[in-house]
């Protein structure tokens, strides 16, 4: 199995041990927070997540692609940890021979002023990563210098506000002030409704 690649492994724990030997991640520890560098988490027999520093991420991803057989980029996405001032980029890779997935998570700074909100581009490893990076630039304001057409609008044409997927952007308030809400909208909490229906006297 898996003979065409430099490192052969059969289960995901074995893969993580090799990554520990190579110094990408810390040895097995208790559950840590997702943005802590060195964290490892095995979710199931075919899915694991590792957290690495931004400088090491491209090296690790290239290794996983060329030496471990993770030839498919499933997705590239970001999560906004506004309380910690961090974005967590997630590169999900797939191994077609073993049908294993590994998520490489990379915490980067949130604000451009603190030399953050920027990440090395991987559009030369997978061409489709350029589209993901364009989307991240528009939705989160994360810059990927050198990525093709990264500054062009992707979905939002002429957007001049805070990137809408950042958590400081108040989408409800923006919608109310921009899109002429029709008055008279009311919401019904299911719990309240059932309480009134079942116990009308209380």
């Amino acid at each position, binding site marked *: 199995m898996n003979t065409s690649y430099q490192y052969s492994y059969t289960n995901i724990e074995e893969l993580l041990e090799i990554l520990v030997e190579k110094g990408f991640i810390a040895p097995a520890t208790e559950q840590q927070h997702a943005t802590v560098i060195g964290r490892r988490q095995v979710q199931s027999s075919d899915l694991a997540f590792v957290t690495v520093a931004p400088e090491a991420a491209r090296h690790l991803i290239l290794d996983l692609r060329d030496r471990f057989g993770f030839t498919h980029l499933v997705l590239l996405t970001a999560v906004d940890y506004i309380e910690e001032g961090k974005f967590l980029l997630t590169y999900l890779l797939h191994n077609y021979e073993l049908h294993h997935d590994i998520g490489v998570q990379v915490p980067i700074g949130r604000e451009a002023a603190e030399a953050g909100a920027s990440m090395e581009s991987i559009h030369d490893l997978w061409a489709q990563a350029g589209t993901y990076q364009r989307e991240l630039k528009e939705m989160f304001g994360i810059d990927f210098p050198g990525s093709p057409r990264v500054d062009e609008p992707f979905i939002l044409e002429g957007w001049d506000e805070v990137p809408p997927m950042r958590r400081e952007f108040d989408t409800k308030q923006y919608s109310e002030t*921009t899109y002429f809400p*029709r008055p008279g909208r009311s919401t019904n909490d299911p719990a309240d409704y059932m309480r009134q229906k079942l116990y009308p006297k209380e």
Partner: protein
Amino acid sequence: MSTDINKEDTQTQQESIRQVVEAMGEYPGAADASDPQLFCEARPKVEKPFRGVFEKFLNWARANSLWVLGFGTGCGAIELRPLMTSRFDASRFGVAGRPTPRQSSVFIIGGYASVKTLKRIVRSYEQMQNPKFVIALGSCTINGGMYWDSYNTINRIDQYIPVDVYITGCMPRPEAILAGFVKLQELIKAGRGEKANEYAEHFDWYKANQKKVIKDWDMPDYNW
């Protein structure tokens, strides 16, 4: 032999296009014949309906030949496909699909409209010829529906283009859409399908609303 015929045809076509463009020169907004502009930028005008029996006859004809623009905006477009099949058979009501705004009289807004789509909706609507009618499907066109607090989806389509008939539901079934077509026919036959004139009358208000949300406005203010 055949190439000669084609050549002649092309020359005749070019000649007729030149004549049309020259004729358009009399109207404001049209370009001169040397620079043929394929649309007219002049403001829309209110076209008063005729009176009496003739207008009634026209309305009867309009109501029975509702040609729908094949522009599927939002998820409601999926409900229009069964409408054309034998089960629901919308052609009973004179409803047919058309590939271009120039030939259509009914624009169906099929649900939610993002700002990017709204730009295309406005442009297609303006390119349709009078009289034109708009049917709005689903909650999203009425008050935003489940996208009421979205940063990129408009709440009320009637702030941007006039709407003749709303069909409620999320999504409405094909039966409901047929009922909407029947309602639209009733309105037209009663002489109440004059929303295109309303658009011309309140043109500035509609245009201000459109420009409020479409921030990269890079098209003419009106085009047909």
